Every structure is written in structure tokens, then in C-alpha cells.
């Protein structure tokens, strides 16, 4: 299913445009620049889970094997995104044994790290991947679009239960 756009854009361009509509800051970097870029957007204290991209490391200031106490005290959580959907500006956060789900959820700021190769065009393409994977290993994850939000208190507020702000480090 495709959305109409004024001019044909590449999936990459469209993704960046769409995710920014949700007030997500986007920093484009090469693998070797990623750690510095993460350092540049986090607010301390920060926790994170290991990033699965070649040549990409968490900066030293991010606790990469956090305890529950670290998680509770942190302001920022850094985790990887497995997939992104250009037309929606959405990213897929895989639940794993490292604890990426709580690390991406409990802090005021979530820094997601995505590789540009993992951007797919539309929801159909995303679900082809997600369906196969779910049947194969019965894993779980969250398709996240922008920060947590609610309008239940009479006006739109970001950060109801989940992160108030999301930053994206986009590796090219």
C-alpha cells in the first residue's frame, strides 16, 4: 500500500521525512561516526544494549550491561532498530534477551540506531519480513512511530508512559 507523494522519493528520503513529522531528530552517520553521534544526542545517565551493526559501538558513557537500578536511574536508553518503514516513519524494535524492550521504553529519551539498508518501502514489505520471522522463531517486537503520546488529558502530550522524546541515529 503506497501513500501519495508529490514527487517520487526514495525510500530513504521518504523515511527521513516521515519520521521527522513525529518530532524525531535524525542524525545521518557512517559506522565509524556512530558512537560520537550517539554521545552527542544522549542525556546522562544513559543505558543501552549492544548494537548489531558492523563497526558500530556504543560510546563508553553508555552503560551497555545495565542493572535494573541503572535502568531506573537512567534518562536515556540506546537500542537498535531492526527495520524501518519509509511510508510511515516507523521503526521496529525487536524484543531480545539483552533487555532492549525495557531499555527503549522506561527512559525519557530513546535513542534508536538504524541501518539505512533496513528501510523497506511499505507496510506490506514489513509484514512479509515480520510474518516469516514470527513463524520461524516466535519472537516479539514493537513497531514504534514517534514518541509515546496521549490526548487523554485534554490535549496532546508526548511521553505518557513511554519515552517523551526519540532520536534516530541513521547509519549509511
Amino acid at each position: 500500500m503506497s501513500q501519495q507523494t508529490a514527487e517520487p522519493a526514495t525510500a530513504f528520503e521518504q523515511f527521513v521525512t516521515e519520521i521527522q513529522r513525529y518530532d524525531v531528530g535524525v542524525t545521518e552517520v557512517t559506522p565509524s561516526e556512530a558512537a560520537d553521534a550517539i554521545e552527542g544526542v544522549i542525556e546522562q545517565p544513559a543505558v543501552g544494549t549492544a548494537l548489531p551493526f558492523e563497526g558500530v559501538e556504543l560510546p563508553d558513557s553508555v552503560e551497555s550491561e545495565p542493572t535494573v537500578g541503572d535502568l531506573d536511574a537512567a534518562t536515556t536508553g540506546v537500542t537498535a532498530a531492526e527495520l524501518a518503514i519509509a511510508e510511515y516513519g516507523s521503526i521496529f524494535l525487536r524484543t531480545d534477551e539483552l533487555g532492549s524492550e525495557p531499555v527503549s521504553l522506561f527512559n525519557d529519551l530513546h535513542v534508536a540506531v538504524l541501518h539505512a539498508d533496513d528501510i523497506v518501502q511499505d507496510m506490506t514489505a514489513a509484514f512479509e519480513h515480520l510474518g516469516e520471522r514470527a513463524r520461524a522463531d516466535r519472537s516479539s517486537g514493537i513497531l514504534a512511530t514517534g514518541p509515546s503520546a496521549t490526548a487523554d488529558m485534554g490535549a496532546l502530550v508526548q511521553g505518557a508512559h513511554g519515552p517523551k522524546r526519540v532520536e534516530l541515529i541513521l547509519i549509511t
Partner: protein
Amino acid sequence: MSSQRDSKAEHIRHIMETEGAAVGTNTRGFNAGRYESVAKLSDYDGLKDEARAIKEDAIERLPELIDELTATVEENGGTVYLAEDAADANEYIAEVCAQQEADRLVKSKSMTSEEIEVNEYLEREGVDVVETDLGEWVLQVAEEAPSHIVAPAIHKSRAEIARLFNEYFEPEEELETAEELTMFAREQLGERIKDADVGMTGANFLAADSGTMALVTSEGNARKTVTVPDTQIAVAGVEKIVPTVEDLQPFIELIGRSGTGQDITSYISLLTPPIDGPTVDFDDPGAPVAGDGDDREFHLVLIDNGRLAMREDEDLKETLYCIRCSACSNTCANFQSVGGHAFGGETYSGGIATGWEAGVHGQESAAEFNDLCTGCSRCVEACPVGIDIPWINTVVRDRINDDEEVPMDFLVDGLTPDEETSGPGLQKRLFGNFETLAKLGSTFAPLSNWVANAGPVSRLLEETVGVADERDLPTFQRTTLVEWFDEREAIPPADPERKVVLYPDLYTNYMMVERGKAAVRTLEALGVEVVVPSVPGAGRAPLSQGMIDTARSKAEAVADTLDPYVEQGYDIVVIEPSDVAMFRGDYERLLGPDRFESLSEHSYEIMEYVYGLLENGADVDGLNVADGETTVAYHSHCQQRTMGLEPYTLQVFDRCGYDVETSDAECCGMAGSFGYKEQYYDLSMDVGSNLDSQLREIDADRVVASGTSCTDQIGDLLGEEPSHAVELIAPPE
């Protein structure tokens, strides 16, 4: 009867006064957002068709899918419990909590859990139940029920929530802004989630192939509810099952757009529980976050509670396709005025609620609010799975009618020669037998008009059958359209290209004869041969009262009369949009597909037909084209819009040189007999006030409408009756 109607009117007035403003602002915002969001899709209709097909297939194969899902979830390490009813489900859930020695259960939003009233049950068992969705939590604190299936506290303003929290929690600093209220709730609920023993969620969808469930949320409370405690209970109606994970795709694209007008909500949890991530024990700060989640337990409680019986019920079955997006609530003009506390039953609210309530709680619960569906049909177009919601309302109304005890009444009995074997109430029978009333009214006009609107008779009508005293009854014409046509001396166009039966709908024939004459002049000016035979009423009036047998006999009589014309090559042209909707839509159910198809294919709305004639070379100069700059304010009829016919009228106006602005009010509020009913008069006027302000703002030279109801309502609102579209373009006599 009268006192029942009075108390209903009083209840509706009270809800409108206390909750109407907040509900109106929010639902209209959602509705506008829906239009905007679905317009961005390149193939919205294709996506809806896809979603519909998945649901049709899934409900068809439901027993098999339940078995498949059960096997899959068990293979994944979870437990499935198929609960026959609410009590059965609650006992099981309580047992799980007891085994876990749970003191606290945290919940994310779930209407199905409201349906089984699990909170009350668990509280009695000594479990502290905390709603973590902010809207639900507000209601838990306020001890109120949801007024909307997606945004449960939609009836409360920010100021009211602030007052509630300040009184209940007595915070050190008074809470005021939405930001302050949200952060307060985040903190309070965050603490409660940390201590929770069990997390309960609903499920928007369940994929049988992998046991994957989708949760559509925005706040993140569902994520926390699942992640923190080691035990997850998901409560879901059996109808939530779809065959595969890929089947979720169209629904994920449609649900947020259709409901709150969001392209997608913040979080779509795609969980295959028990999930493979660690639980988080905040009492053990030294423990690592990482972990394999092997301590997790998952219980899927599938709720039948009447659903498998609904599946066997041809008319209620479609209800099971509902994905609870709330589009039918938000687009409904009546809902926009009152919300779910008036337009709702024990659990569900809005148009589709009639199906849900009748199916899971029983007909009595549906009877409470079923009349608020006027059959305007705007929800059909809005529904992402295309459920014929008005039909479900009509069927349930018919079934409710059957159960009503009706006194044989001396005044109305002669006016109600219907096919109903048992009793719709007097008020419904009077309006349902409008054809008889119209014939009598016309025979005795103008005396009948004078008598009916005179003080004593008008008051008698209100007391006995509940016709609102405030309304002027329709003015019947002594000479009907059919009589005028028979008696007139006119030379038919020579060598006509097309032959037309102008259908003398009840309203045109007996009351608004001028618009009928205008239609004849217009068609003849465009070179068409016109006949206006005597044809029975279309059955719209009885259908709207839930008198399906009567409507069916009308439909058969109409088809008997018109079929021979169709066979001789006549097109059927209809002025009243609600009757076009009968011919093109409802007759399929009333007549069966074969008879329906021929009549439906050859029926046209008058302005649609005029557009077709102009497209095929007819000369627009034969019509009453605008001289200079004539501005027109146009309100399209609700059913006309659902059939996609509004653009034809606008095109014709444009070709005739009129400068047109349209209203975007979903419905005028009159909706057939609805606005004439004593108990709904205030609501009808409240709905109309939206249209009223739009028309006044447009401030055009001419106000034009297409439906009889809209004409009556706008007449009452503006103090001057608008013209029908065809009267604007008809050449002068």
C-alpha cells in the same frame, strides 16, 4: 408511553448539557482526521476490501482458527482458555491470579475486559486492579463508564480531570495543564506497574499461524504492562483471530486512520507470548536487566460470550468483523452530540454497538439506544471493513419491536395497515405507515394541514404517539404529482433519446410537488420523455422503524410496478435520495439479488441523471443557468453522500454557472421521522445546530438541499425552506 418518552428526552438533554461539548469537539476532530488520513492512501478502497475479505474468511473458518491458535500458543509455551461467558472467564482469571498470589494486576485498555467486568470480579477476590491507560484510569478514579470505545474519557474536559485529580489525590501543587496531568499520571501509574504481579492486556488481533498478537496503542502502558510482571493474561473475543501475521497489515494501516485519524498509532506491539525478553524486578536493583524471560507465563483467555451464536445469525454475523476502531461513533451526527453514555449499552457505544450489545448482553441492552441510529449510513463508508451498520440496527429494531406489548389504539389503528404480525409501538407504526398518512393528508388538504398543526391536535399527537409539538407537520398538497402529471396538457418531446419513469416518491408526490414538477420540466428540457405513473412508496418509512416485513411488501409492490417499465427500456429517476438508497442498497436484502439488480442498475438520482444527460450532449442552456454571480449553499443528503452521488449535483451546478459552497455536516439531524419524535427533538436540533452555523456562515443567495428531511430541518433552522437541487436548475414554468 409518554412518561417513558419524557424520561428518555430528559436523559438525553442532561447528557448533552454535561458531556455534549467535550464529546462533540473530540469526535468531530477524530472524524476530520479520518478524512485527512485516509485521503493519503493511494488505494483506500482496495485496502478496505482486503481487510473485509480477511475478516469474512476468518469468521467463516473461526472454529478451525480457534483450534489452530490454541495449538500454536500452547506450542509457544502459553495456555489458552476458551471461556463460554463472562463468569467462566472471570473464574479462570481469578484462579490464575490466586496461583500467582497476586496482590496487584495492572491492565492496559481492553473493551472486552469491560464486557466481562473483570475488574469488579477481581476486586471482590481481593486483587487490586489498576487501569494504566490514562483515559481508563481517569474513569476508574471517577467511577464512571467509558463514553467511547477508543477514547474512553472523551466526555471529560481537561478542567474536569484537573478538578477530579486535585480533589482525589490532593497533590502538593494543584494540577492544571494537560502536561501536568499526564506527568502526574505517568508517575503514579509507573509506581503501580513496578509493583504489579500480573499484567492484563486485550488483543486487537491474534494471528493463528504464530500466536502473534497485535496491540494498537499510543501511550506505552501496554508495553510496560507486558514487560514488567512475569505473568501476562490477554483477554480477547474469539473474533479477533486472523489466519496469518501478514493478514495484520491492512488492519494496521486502517485502524488508526479510521479511528482517531492517525496514520498509525505510536506503538503497534507485535507480541508472540510468552515473550522472550526479561521481566523487570524493580525490587532487585542489583540484578541485570538482561535475561531470557524463562520465568514468564502467558494465559490467553478467548471469550465466546455469545459470539459463536452471533456467527450463526445471518444478520448479526457482520458485527464480528468489527475491529473497534470507533469510526462509526465519530462520524455519527447523533453520537457527536451525546457520546456513548446515551448512544451506548452496557459496554459498547456507537453505531455498531447495537450488534455487540444484542449479541453479548442481549436485546434489552441494545433497545436502550438503538433508536439513536437514524440509518443515515455515513458510518458504512467510514467503517474499514464495510459493515452495513444501519442494517444491523434495523434488524435489531425489528426484533425489539416483536417483543413490545402494544395496546390496540383507537386513534392510530386505521392509520397502520402494516404487515407487522406483532408490535412495534404506536409511534413507530405511525411513522412506519407514513404512506397511509400521506394519502389521507393529501385527500383532506388543506384542512388536514390546518387541523394537524392546530394547537389541540398537535398536542394530542405529542401525547399519544409522541410527535414533537415544536415541529410543523409536513404540508400535504391537494393535487399530487401523479394527478398533476395526468391532468396537464403538454406535448412530449419529439423523438426522445431516452424514456424515464420519474418515481413519485411519497414526499414528492404528496408534499413537495413543486420539486417533482421541476424535475419533469428539467428532464423534458433535456429532451427526455417522462412518465409519472402511480407507484407505491419505496418502504423507507417502515424500514426506518424496523418494520422489515412491511418494507419488504412495499419493495415487492414497487418492483412489480417498475419492472415492466425497465423491460421496455425506461430509466427510473428518483428525487428523494433515501429512496435511491432503497433501490440501490436495501432492496438487495428485501428483494433478493436478481430482482434487485435490474431495478438497481436502471435507477438514478435526478441530478446524477441530469449530469449523465449533459455528459451525453444535452444542452445546458435549456436549464435555468445562473445570471451573474449567484452563490449557493448546498447540503447534500447523508445517504446521497454515502452512495457517492454528491459530486454529480455539484458538477451540474458548476455547469449551470452557480458558485457553490457545501456543508460538511454529516447529517442534518432530522433523518426521516427521527426529528419529529418528541423524545429526540432536542437532540435533532442540537445536531442541526452544526449545519445551521455552517449554512449561516456561507451566507449564500440560495440555500439548496436534496433530501426531504434536510429541507424540513433547514426550514426549521433558518426559518425559510431551502429549494431542492433540481428546483434551482429547472427551467421556469
